[in-house]
């Protein structure tokens, strides 16, 4: 299974299928290309990803993940990480407010499962490295699987100690592993990793990056050989590895990675990281999209990553972690599967409707006479619908629409870190800046003031498609837009 399956091909729609068929280079015909959605990929793979919000863009509208911070020890230093940092208002990888023992993690996960029916995935993703601090990772997964057998287990690692644990990963049925790979050229690695700890000593410079690179490649190959789905995370660091990520993409794809997720560097002097303190900047949203577009050829990328906290709880766009801190979790907990089971039945039904609406939208789009692709931003609370008030949106989901169909391309966050004290105008300016390149915002409701400010900045905003399915609303807007343009020309 040495092929990368694109998120887009996980999503069942007519136009998507056509594009998937065009993008099949390197695919064996037995594993993709048939008519609809789940059939685009081997059934066993669809079964693995259909409820995983990080591995399936379609699933992330419905399902939630939670991370437990049980493995705080790490064996490498990255220039974008400062291990001392902790802030309850921050949302970015590696940040966490409380570290848990495996037994505490069990109580917390069961409490969440009883309250959050969308929960489908339990991940261990820092701070620290899940494979280095392996005993705690293993104990946590074993405890929780005993109570909630159907929860999907997922871990994230820098890869250095991964090869030592692949057999146990397979035995424990951990079928999703994320490796952070920022380079396949150790020379570039020297600008990202000041040191690693391996075989009882600290390595620096080129030696450190060579060892890390070799171990990452070995780990990836071992996972692929066992059929474990692998996601590669790469941090895009302008001027350091941005162009090199094309090569990283090529190499990880050839070694069987399932998904490639390019994440923007988050860099701020206040975080105390090496990059933050030395003024290394992160990429702008359009720079990130340009790289993703160059890499993707329409497939093979994860674009809906929210770079969540290491103790995040909930749908990808939200974090309910503060509702489940250990002081709020009961001493004795018992798992009650009712809510999760009911929710799954509802989702199965909703998904059917969602797919039907998409297909209808694609048919409408195909008849539009235009060749211009446009970016549309959507305010949503989840469930795949346009259902959030403009003013409540902390992020917008961005789709590209053309007669070929509607494709998810990413999200734009609008909340600034520690925003308190800013005026409303400053916030709206921030929103407008975040919406660079976007033609229209679809939301459940919007006031006249922000609508006029957006309009002055060349961005249309409308609640005409409130509560529609996202893709259906976008298709209708695009069709209307072109109908009105055609009238103007006539």
């Amino acid at each position, binding site marked *: 299974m040495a092929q990368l399956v694109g998120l887009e091909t996980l999503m069942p729609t007519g136009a998507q299928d056509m594009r998937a068929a065009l993008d099949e280079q390197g695919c064996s015909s037995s594993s993709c290309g048939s008519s609809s959605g789940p059939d685009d990929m081997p059934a066993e793979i669809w079964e693995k990803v259909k409820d995983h919000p990080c591995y399936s863009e379609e699933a992330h509208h419905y399902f939630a993940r939670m991370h437990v911070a049980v493995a705080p*020890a790490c064996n490498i230093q990255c220039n974008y990480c400062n*291990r001392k940092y902790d802030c309850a208002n921050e949302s970015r990888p590696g940040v966490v407010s409380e570290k848990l023992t495996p037994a505490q993690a069990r109580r917390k996960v069961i409490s969440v499962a009883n309250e959050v029916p969308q929960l489908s995935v339990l991940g261990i993703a820092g701070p620290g490295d899940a494979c280095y601090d392996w005993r705690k990772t293993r104990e946590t997964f074993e405890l929780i699987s005993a109570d909630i057998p159907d929860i999907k287990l997922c871990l994230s690692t820098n890869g250095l100690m991964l090869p030592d644990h692949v057999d146990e990963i397979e035995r424990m049925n951990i079928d999703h592993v994320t490796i952070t790979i920022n380079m396949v050229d150790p020379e570039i690695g020297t600008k990202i990793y000041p040191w690693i700890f391996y075989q009882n000593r600290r390595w620096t410079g080129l030696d450190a990056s060579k060892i890390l690179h070799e171990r990452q490649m070995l780990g990836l190959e071992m996972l692929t050989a066992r059929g474990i789905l692998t996601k590669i995370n790469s941090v895009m660091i302008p001027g350091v590895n941005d162009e090199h990520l094309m090569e990283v993409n090529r190499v990880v794809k050839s070694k069987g990675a399932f998904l490639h997720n390019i994440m923007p560097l988050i860099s701020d002097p206040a975080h105390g990281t090496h990059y933050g303190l030395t003024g290394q900047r992160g990429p702008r949203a359009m720079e990130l999209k340009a790289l993703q577009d160059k890499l993707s050829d329409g497939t093979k990328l994860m674009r809906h990553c929210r770079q969540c906290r290491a103790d995040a709880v909930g749908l990808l766009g939200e974090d309910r972690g503060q509702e489940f801190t250990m002081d709020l979790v009961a001493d004795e907990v018992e798992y009650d599967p009712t809510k999760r089971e009911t929710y799954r039945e509802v989702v199965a039904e909703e998904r059917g409707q969602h797919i039907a609406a998409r297909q209808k939208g694609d048919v409408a789009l195909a008849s539009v006479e235009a060749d211009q692709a446009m970016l549309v931003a959507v305010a949503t609370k989840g469930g795949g619908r346009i259902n959030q008030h403009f003013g409540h949106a902390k992020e917008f989901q961005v789709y590209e629409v053309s007669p070929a169909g509607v494709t998810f391309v990413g999200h734009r966050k609008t909340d600034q870190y520690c925003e308190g004290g800013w005026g409303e105008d400053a916030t709206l300016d921030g929103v407008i800046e975040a919406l660079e390149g976007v033609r229209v915002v679809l939301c459940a409701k919007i006031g006249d003031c922000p609508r006029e400010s957006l309009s002055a900045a060349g961005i249309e905003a409308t609640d005409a498609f409130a509560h529609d399915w996202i893709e259906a609303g976008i298709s209708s807007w695009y069709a209307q837009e072109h109908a009105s343009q055609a009238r103007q020309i006539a």
Partner: protein
Amino acid sequence: MAYKIITSQCTVCGACEFECPNAAITLKNDLYVINPKKCTECEGHFDVAQCAAVCPVPNTCVPA
């Protein structure tokens, strides 16, 4: 002949406890401490003190 942890700088990640060949490092009241009676500075085990080599914060595991 022992190391100590500068607790004001420690992130309590536990990597040192994990690596110590003498089980000299334990968590006490949410802080890691090195038992000087057990610490050998890794002599006879490794070329360098493991706690200092793995610690993510510079100058935090230091000779007492």
